[in-house]
């Protein structure tokens, strides 16, 4: 490994390391604005200039020496940008001399020349790279003094560039063009990470500004630019003016918006969540999170139930916990315990799942289930890790990762661009990774993508196709035939050529990764085929479950038993249980954070619940990685955790609660599995549970297809996300819609398990005929299309 001398310290770094990273690795600092982890270095801000030199070898292969016999250092004739300079053996780097400091302070001066210096009103204040460097260099008397020797922080006396200061790029992001320092991080980010080129520089020279011509930044990953903008030019609009950086209480937690368990920071202030930011996990989400994880938190502060509620006639009235307990006792008095149903949300933690499963077995009930459960258990599949995507020779996607498991979209894109897992240095991820190159187009030959509708990753894939909903098994049968060298039949709309091409690439690959979405997991036949193909070929699988903690809950045994009878009483921590379940029972206890129509209609007792932002607990993510939720400081009245609520419910039913606290569940977990949930590895701990559960089919009938969306439960979202998503779009092939007498633009009320949703009809000739597609909460469900055109619903 090359040895590099940084000032007085010599370090060894891997070949290809940038001088900048060698400097950090050696424990020195170098200022920077444009370099950023996981993005291609561009060397554009010129802030990181250093003096560098290297020895040279003579024709005899020996180092050239100077008069005194020392190895001679040939200094570069100019100062070098350390972020774009690769180290070489024997390189010498100076970051401390006056020459270097002077050049750097000159660059600060130039960077500030057109900067508005409105830190007092800027949300970035206190967490701004430019502010820090301005403090560090701006008043450097050694370099800048006025006529009478007084320190001067800038000599720029002309009118600063005045451009758009409050420019909303989308519902989520606001741009201040005066503050932009043209580091290009945001532009590189969009091109290199999600691959959505929705932001770019416009104009050139000093007039260059950031802008978009694609309204609303269509991307599932727009919010990350607010984290990486080194100044206050791109700000989280949802969190705008909600607090100063030093006022936030920052809690490291994980997102439950999908099954990846993206690492987040929850920034709360005065008992309210103001902002979510990405938290680095180089094995899981790097420094990126989906927009749903970032901006989908507003609901947690809206209309919270702060006390228990008990039904009095038509109304739910506030009550004490004692009154609630009494009401539950009364309601459960005559109920056979084996006829009590327990329903959990899909993001219930391992600890909660353990408590629920224990209680169910105490009750002797088989009715134990969770929201977003798939027909076939996700734990049936050999789980892949995200890092394995970068090693894959072929990736086959059956589903829509961009919506079902957003961070997977990023990993797939990284793989297609040839990005490798970065080396870890003393300071962590390299800041200027010279192995990442700007403008590297994705290599589609590594990817096959098939789904019941066009998807974003399909745009990259060399083999791709759309099959009709419910035809995943037919597609997989054709794929299996092609693998076996038989001629595949046309698979419900996918051309045999595409199937063959995908099968060829799959066969010739050594390391294969398979993604299966809810469409496959909801279909027993398809899922079993996929499992067979994967296992027989040694492929690893991402089972993109709708439930964030499907694997964890399955591992704890939260799964309906074969002989479960219709429940008479129901305890549900899921906010949106299927209406037929609720209809079956006569007594309903809801443990939820907020009211909704179903709660109002069915609940007999409501216990105030914590949101996932307030919980301590563990999820088992799609990779079989244990990741931990930590409670943020959110004011939530008397809200209690699910373990406690279940314990209370157990007492009401007259049994000794098997678990009362998360702490107890963790102790039991340690005992059983030898994993300490209090001490997970910083980036999560891989834990492979042994589970064997039988498939439980779900009814799938009809021609309305509920398409997966990263925005899981619309009623949960809050204002900004609601506005951003706008009116739902009901998409159909023009012929299909016209056959139903529906014209493009018609506004309809569509019946869904989450109630009637208003949607606008759009035509899409790329969709299979005969189907209506609605991106709504519950994914990959097929059900009868029932819609009504409201009066005045204008068809245009």
């Amino acid at each position: 490994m090359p040895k590099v001398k940084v000032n007085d310290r010599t370090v060894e770094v891997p070949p290809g390391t940038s001088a900048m990273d060698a400097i950090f690795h050696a424990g020195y600092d170098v200022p920077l604005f444009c370099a950023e982890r996981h993005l291609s270095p561009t060397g554009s801000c010129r802030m990181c200039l250093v003096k560098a030199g290297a020895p040279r070898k003579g024709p005899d292969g020996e180092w050239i020496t100077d008069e005194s016999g020392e190895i001679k250092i040939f200094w570069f004739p100019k100062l070098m940008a350390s972020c774009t300079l690769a180290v070489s053996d024997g390189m010498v780097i100076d970051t401390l001399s006056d020459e270097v400091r002077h050049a750097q302070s000159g660059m600060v001066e130039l960077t500030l020349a057109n900067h508005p210096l409105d830190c007092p009103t800027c949300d970035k204040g206190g967490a701004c790279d430019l502010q820090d460097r301005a403090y560090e260099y701006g008043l450097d008397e050694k370099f800048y003094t006025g006529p009478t020797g007084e320190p001067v922080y800038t000599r720029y006396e002309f009118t600063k560039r005045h451009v758009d200061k409050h420019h909303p790029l989308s519902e989520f992001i606001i741009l201040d063009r005066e503050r932009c320092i043209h580091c290009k991080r945001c532009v590189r980010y969009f091109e290199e990470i999600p691959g959505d080129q929705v932001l770019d520089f416009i104009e050139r020279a000093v007039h260059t500004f950031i802008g978009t011509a694609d309204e609303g930044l269509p991307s599932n990953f727009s919010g990350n630019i607010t984290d990486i903008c080194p100044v206050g030019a791109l700000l989280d609009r949802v969190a705008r003016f909600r607090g100063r950086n030093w006022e936030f209480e920052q809690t490291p937690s994980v997102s439950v918006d999908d099954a990846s368990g993206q690492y987040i920071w929850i920034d709360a202030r005065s008992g309210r969540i103001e902002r979510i930011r990405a938290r680095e996990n180089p094995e899981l989400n790097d420094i990126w999170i989906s927009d749903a994880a970032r901006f989908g938190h507003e609901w947690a502060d809206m209309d919270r139930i702060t006390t228990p509620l008990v039904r009095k006639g038509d109304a739910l009235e506030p009550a004490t916990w004692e009154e609630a307990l009494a009401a539950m006792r009364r309601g459960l008095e005559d109920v056979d315990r084996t006829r009590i149903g327990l329903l959990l949300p899909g993001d219930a933690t391992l600890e909660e799942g353990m408590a629920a499963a224990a209680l169910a077995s105490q009750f002797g009930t088989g009715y134990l289930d969770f929201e977003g459960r798939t027909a076939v258990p996700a734990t049936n599949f050999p789980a892949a890790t995200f890092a394995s995507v970068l090693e894959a020779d072929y990736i086959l996607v059956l589903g829509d990762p961009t919506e079902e498991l957003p961070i997977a979209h990023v990993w797939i894109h990284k793989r297609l661009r040839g990005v490798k897992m970065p080396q870890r240095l003393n300071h962590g991820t390299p800041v200027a990774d010279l192995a990442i190159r700007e403008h590297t187009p994705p290599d589609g030959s590594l990817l096959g993508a098939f789904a019941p509708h066009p998807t974003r990753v399909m745009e990259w894939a060399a083999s791709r196709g759309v099959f009709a909903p419910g035809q995943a098994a037919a597609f997989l049968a054709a794929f299996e035939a092609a693998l076996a060298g038989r001629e595949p039949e046309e698979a419900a709309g996918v051309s045999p050529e595409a199937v063959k091409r995908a099968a060829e690439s799959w066969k010739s690959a050594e390391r294969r990764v398979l993604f299966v979405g809810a469409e496959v997991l909801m279909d027993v036949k398809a899922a079993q085929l996929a499992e067979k193909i994967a296992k027989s070929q040694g492929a690893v699988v991402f089972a993109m479950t709708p439930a964030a903690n499907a694997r964890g809950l399955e591992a704890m045994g939260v799964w309906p038993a074969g002989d479960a009878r219709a429940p008479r009483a129901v305890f549900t921590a899921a906010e949106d249980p299927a209406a037929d379940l609720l209809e079956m029972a006569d007594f309903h206890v809801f443990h939820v954070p907020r009211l909704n129509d179903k709660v109002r209609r069915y609940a007999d007792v409501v216990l105030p619940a914590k949101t996932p932002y307030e919980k301590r607990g563990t999820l088992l993510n799609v990779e079989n990685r244990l990741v931990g939720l930590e409670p943020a400081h959110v004011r939530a009245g008397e809200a209690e955790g699910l373990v406690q609520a279940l314990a209370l419910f157990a007492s009401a039913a007259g049994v000794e609660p098997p678990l009362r606290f998360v702490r107890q569940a963790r102790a039991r977990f340690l005992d059983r599995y030898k994993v300490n949930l209090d001490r997970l590895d910083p980036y999560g701990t891989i834990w492979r549970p042994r589970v064997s559960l039988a498939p439980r089919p779900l009814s799938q009938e009809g021609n309305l297809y509920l398409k997966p969306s990263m925005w899981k439960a619309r009623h949960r979202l809050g204002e900004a996300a609601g506005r951003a998503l706008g009116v739902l779009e009901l998409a159909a092939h023009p012929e299909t819609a016209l056959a139903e007498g529906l014209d493009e633009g018609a506004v309809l009320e569509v019946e869904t398990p989450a109630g009637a949703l208003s949607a606008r009809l759009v035509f899409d000739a790329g969709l299979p005929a005969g189907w209506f597609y609605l991106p709504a909460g519950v994914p990959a469900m097929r059900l009868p299309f029932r819609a009504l055109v409201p009066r005045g619903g204008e068809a245009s």
Partner: protein
Amino acid sequence: MGFFDDKQEWLAEVFAQYPEDRRRSALMPLLRRVQQEEGYVDFERMKEIAALVGTTATEVAGVMSFYSYYQGLPTGKYHIQVCRTLSCKLAGSDELWHTLSERLGILPGEVTADGRFSLQAVECLGSCHTGPVIQINDEHYVERVTKARLEALLEGLMQDKPLEEVRRSLPDEDKMGKATIELEGGEPS
């Protein structure tokens, strides 16, 4: 209807110049075609081009605004581009520019009321020995734009004669387009 709908053959020819998976290279030729025919590139056209070369409207806007030639606002039938760089300046391009601006009564970005003229100051056109130089639309240069040649030029354009014809009929045009030009006689000393 899309601008390129009836230009499929031309499109195929342009795309054939670049590798199959590098359609984006055709971005500039496509922008130029719209600019040539419509005098500017509006948002709808940007979207159309984006779809044709497989990128987003944002990227098209980013590229388009980088170059001086493509215009985001409508231009006149004769978009007059005047070189303002040093050699032309030494040949009087500042005065030429002000004269034109005054005569036409427009500033950059504006179009004369009759829709005929718009003006743009541009940088060195690579004809420094024949300054001042102007270029109209995407045509061959008008070099050595003396007062007399400017008069003749504007007169021709006012009559909407074909550009090339007007240029050819300018006084001394036969001396132009040469690698060296002779001014007021003089032998090598």
